[in-house]
């Protein structure tokens, strides 16, 4: 079972449908007790809202989330769900989870903000050989909607980047933690492929 954390900030139907489509067994979890009770094989933090609101609403889940991550349960953070895994964001005074060392900063001047639309990935297989990106190639497009981006301290966690005024981390992976700045559930076939790879990882 894949627990999708519902932190009360928007529709989760797309990510639920997408995980369902690729053979996952998604369940939307709306409170921390349900997450504790659930026997989750994986956790997804979906991408809706702003950093401060997301951290505020996610805080009740944090103890259980840390337990799951410590025990090796695969975690997938999407968009703002990626950003909250870092230490801090320019968007808010709220502290992030700090599961990945680094900052979240605003997109540079000179580009339309938010970045909204399909952008290409450059895969960095020299950094890490990502199972999640199996079958994904340089130049494949994914759908982004964001105003801030993640800057990991350790560049070796960057599995793929994208270029929007600045070359930025688009996919970050560290042990059982996986994070994508784009929305795989809105990225058609290639997005579903990434989610399928994530689901396969759980089954292994």
């Amino acid at each position, binding site marked *: 079972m894949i627990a999708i954390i519902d932190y009360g900030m928007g*529709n989760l*139907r*797309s990510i639920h449908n997408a995980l369902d489509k690729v053979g996952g067994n998604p369940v939307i979890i709306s409170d921390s007790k349900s997450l504790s009770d659930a026997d989750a094989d994986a956790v997804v933090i979906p991408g809706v809202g*702003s950093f401060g609101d997301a951290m505020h609403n996610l805080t009740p889940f944090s103890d259980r989330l840390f337990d799951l991550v410590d025990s090796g349960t695969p975690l997938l953070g999407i968009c703002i769900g990626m950003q909250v895994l870092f230490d801090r964001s320019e968007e808010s005074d709220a502290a992030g989870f700090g599961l990945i060392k680094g900052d979240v900063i605003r997109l540079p001047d000179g580009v339309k903000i*938010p970045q909204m639309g*399909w952008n*290409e990935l450059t895969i960095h297989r020299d950094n890490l050989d990502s199972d999640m990106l199996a079958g994904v190639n340089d130049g494949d*497009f994914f759908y982004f909607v964001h105003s801030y981006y993640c800057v990991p301290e350790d560049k070796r966690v960057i599995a793929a980047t994208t270029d929007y005024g600045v070359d930025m981390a688009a996919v970050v992976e560290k042990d059982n933690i996986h994070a994508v700045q784009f929305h795989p559930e809105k990225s*058609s076939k290639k997005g579903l492929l990434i989610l399928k790879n994530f689901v396969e990882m759980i089954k292994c």
Partner: protein
Amino acid sequence: MLAKRIIPCLDCDLGVAHGRVVKGVRFKQIRYAGIPWELAEEYDRQGADELIFLDITASHERRETMAKVIEKTSENVFMPLTVGGGIRELADARTAFNSGADKVSVNTAALKNPDLINDIAKYFGNQACVLAIDAKRRYGREPGREMVDTPDGECWFECSFYGGREFTGIDAIQWAIEAEERGAGDIMLTSMDRDGTKDGFDIELTKAISDSVNIPVIASGGCGNPEHILEVLRDTNASAALAASIFHFGEYTVGEVKECLRDGGVHVRM
């Protein structure tokens, strides 16, 4: 590099069971095109970047029908979905988002109550609020208007509402700037002079608005062939182009349009 978006628009008549996609000509005559989610799946296969569902019946009773259409579509189509037509208040937007929509587009309701833009942006994010502008050329200089030079003379652009049936006296360029300040995430800009004509987009209108705001502009109205889309994406700052009938009736596929764009030097997702 961010790709320019190609967005098929599904004008939905929800007055029949399950709804159907139709296409109006100059906002009036109607032709039948197909079942919404079946067309949506076909456009996904063809490589569409985003889809817009417009409820052209636009009455409260049919809100639930549109929700069903979006629910059904979002089971199999994984790209951004926008719902427009009949979004009158925040509750309508919420219904659309809960059914699986990513964005709503507002026109009449926002002109009557501009705070609706702020409210949608506040509760669902800027990216979730698309402002639709239906603009018509008005020739001749008028004080307080943003005048634009065109091959046919100097004009300003007037916003219309109620599906093009009534005019507001509001300047479209000024309204676009205000909408950006209020938090709109995209502007879906339809030329009423060109809509349904297949004569090509209104380049002067699209240029004027896309140069005036820093949010993406979706050019709409008048698309008759892939070269029209190439022209508007190459010669203006529009981020996306919308078309309906050239896709619905099988004249061109989204893939054919994108090949034309790529060959013309426009960056697209192939």
